[in-house]
């Protein structure tokens, strides 16, 4: 039993099922991020938690009481919308206290709560303005103020930063994270931005096509993605995927492929599982993140297993802090993350170090990770 429980929840519009049996338990104080491409059902799920959409089947509980059929205002939740949804005819102060007023809170208490929130978010000087007179970032703060003032059990955020410019988005991201650390509230946060998901969350639910693909901590999601979708959706640049053949040799298991000169490569897999050994002779997909594919000097010194190959550099992309180097392994374009001052140029041969501790293997048929 979590603080917020989503049990076998489905959602259908007419005959079309857009969410399929979602199960998520959120603990008190957690920051859960729902992430996935547009149209995967994130907002629908959030709206069902808020009570703005009906639950087709299954149930949602907050603090152990079933919320199905409970009016949004009686769920003790607050929501921040993508468009901020500030009431245009009211001042900032009225926007913030409207919910309290509707709940019959007496005026002196409302004023005090408003003052507290305004101080917390540093919007005291804006209280008498109308939303139309505010900048994007200020509106964002007011929208958060309106949510905070209610002191809800659960905060719901639907892509709250996607209308801000890049710099402001990063600033507000940090601010939301600070706010969460300070207040320790339970948050469900929707975004399509995987970096936002990684930086903010304590846990992530990666969604696609109405299914929760994987639920886990950012590290679990990043290091051990459950399937190819999660592997490619999370992380930038995207995980390198190489077609290899499994070869079992005694206690060792190798991934066989070719370099770009057609020479056979044999990469020993790290701590192979029994499940993987069963794939002897079969084709699988080897997943290596670009930071696990580096120059030899840049390889993780703590890794107990690094394999080095020689291959041709096709493209280099200096990115300031790192240089991204492209090369072709097993017919697949791979991106390696090398040190910024690494000395390679296109057309040259170079050494590439695979950190095999971080490599994962996928079954091409089911697209799931072979554990």
């Amino acid at each position, binding site marked *: 039993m979590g603080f917020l429980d989503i049990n076998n929840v489905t959602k259908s519009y007419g005959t079309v099922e857009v969410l399929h049996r979602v199960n998520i338990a959120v603990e008190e104080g957690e920051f859960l991020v729902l992430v996935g491409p547009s149209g995967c059902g994130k907002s629908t799920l959030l709206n069902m938690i808020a009570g703005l959409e009906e639950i087709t089947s299954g149930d949602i509980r907050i603090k152990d009481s079933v919320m199905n059929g409970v009016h949004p205002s009686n769920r003790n939740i607050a929501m921040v919308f993508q468009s901020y949804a500030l009431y245009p005819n009211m001042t900032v102060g009225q926007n913030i206290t409207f919910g309290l007023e509707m709940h019959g809170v007496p005026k002196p208490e409302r004023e005090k709560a408003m003052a507290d929130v305004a101080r917390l978010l540093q919007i005291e000087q804006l209280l008498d303005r109308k939303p139309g007179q505010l900048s994007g970032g200020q509106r964002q703060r007011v929208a958060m103020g*309106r949510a905070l003032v209610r002191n809800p059990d659960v905060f719901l955020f639907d892509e709250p930063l996607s209308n801000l410019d890049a710099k402001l988005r990063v600033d507000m991201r940090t601010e939301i994270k600070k706010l969460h650390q300070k207040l320790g509230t339970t948050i469900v946060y929707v975004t399509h931005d995987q970096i936002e998901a990684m930086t903010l969350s304590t846990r992530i639910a990666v969604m696609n096509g109405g299914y929760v693909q994987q639920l886990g901590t950012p590290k679990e999601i990043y290091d051990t993605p459950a399937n190819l979708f999660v592997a490619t959706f999370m992380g930038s640049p995207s995980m390198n995927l190489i077609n290899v053949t499994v070869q079992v040799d005694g206690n060792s298991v190798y991934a066989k492929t070719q370099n770009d000169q057609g020479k056979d490569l044999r990469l020993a897999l790290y701590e192979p599982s029994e499940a993987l050994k069963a794939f002897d002779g079969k084709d699988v997909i080897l997943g290596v993140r670009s930071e696990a594919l580096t120059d030899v000097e840049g390889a993780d010194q703590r890794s107990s297993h690094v394999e080095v190959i020689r291959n041709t550099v096709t493209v280099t992309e200096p990115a300031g802090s790192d240089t991204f180097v492209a090369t072709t392994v097993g017919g697949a374009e791979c991106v390696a993350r090398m040190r910024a001052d690494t000395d390679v140029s296109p057309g040259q041969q170079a050494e590439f170090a695979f950190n095999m501790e971080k490599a994962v293997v996928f079954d091409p048929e089911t697209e799931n990770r072979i554990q």
Partner: protein
Amino acid sequence: MAIASSDTAIRTGRFTRTLIYVVLILFVLFYMLPLYVMLVNSVKPLGEITGGGMMSLPTAFTLEPWAKAWSTAQIGVEPTGLQPYFWNSISMVVPAVVISTTLGALNGYILTKWRFRGDTILFGLMLFSCFIPFQIVLIPMAAILGKLGLSGSTAGLVLVHVVYGVGFSTLYFRNYYAAFPTELVRAAQIDGAGFFQIFWRILLPSSGPIIVVCVIWQFTNIWNDFLFGASFASGDGAPMTVALNNLVQSSTGVKEYNVHFAGAILAAMPTLLVYIVAGRYFVRGLMAGSVKG
């Protein structure tokens, strides 16, 4: 070369513009002509008109025709002037406009923010009602008014105009509210506002332009209606338009054209006034509705 060509461009620009303005001014004069005739002749003694001076300015200025049209002229059989009928019209048009606009606003709110199965069909049917010719409903409407005991009363006329008006007012508000962000309604729901609180506190304060459009439209149509007035409320309860007709028709002996002109202006005055006061918002509101909706 470049200078020469730009010079001619400016010249032709000026020439076309002058031409356009001249044509427009002619149109305006042509449009204003009837008003001029009415105004001028309403302040002349009858003799000047029958003497053949329709277009000329009055030689002996008099407000006598206005006073007569307002308070003593023969309407039907009674020498009451238009005054009582003016108040009839006011007491018909004000409730009819208020009720049909309110209902339209509520309908628009429900049709866009509280969607339900079949709502588009319902809206289609309401739109359809805008295009039913008045003549078709005359007899059924008379029967219904009779059953309700409202025949010949101002209340009956109000009902008729509300029923007819609600199609248009719903159309206006639906299109306006369709562009109103639904997230605001959802935010208000989470804040704990009820159905009417959301309408009253969130939507209505942002509905100024469309309310103006709707009020002008309804006011003009209802005030100017003749058919329903003549059919359902002849006699003492008749509205201004019907009374004006009676004034013009019932004059025995000489036709007092100056009184007729004054009466016609009196009948047109309220709609003119509404346009002058709120016309700016009318255009703005129409634009807002059409561009966003």
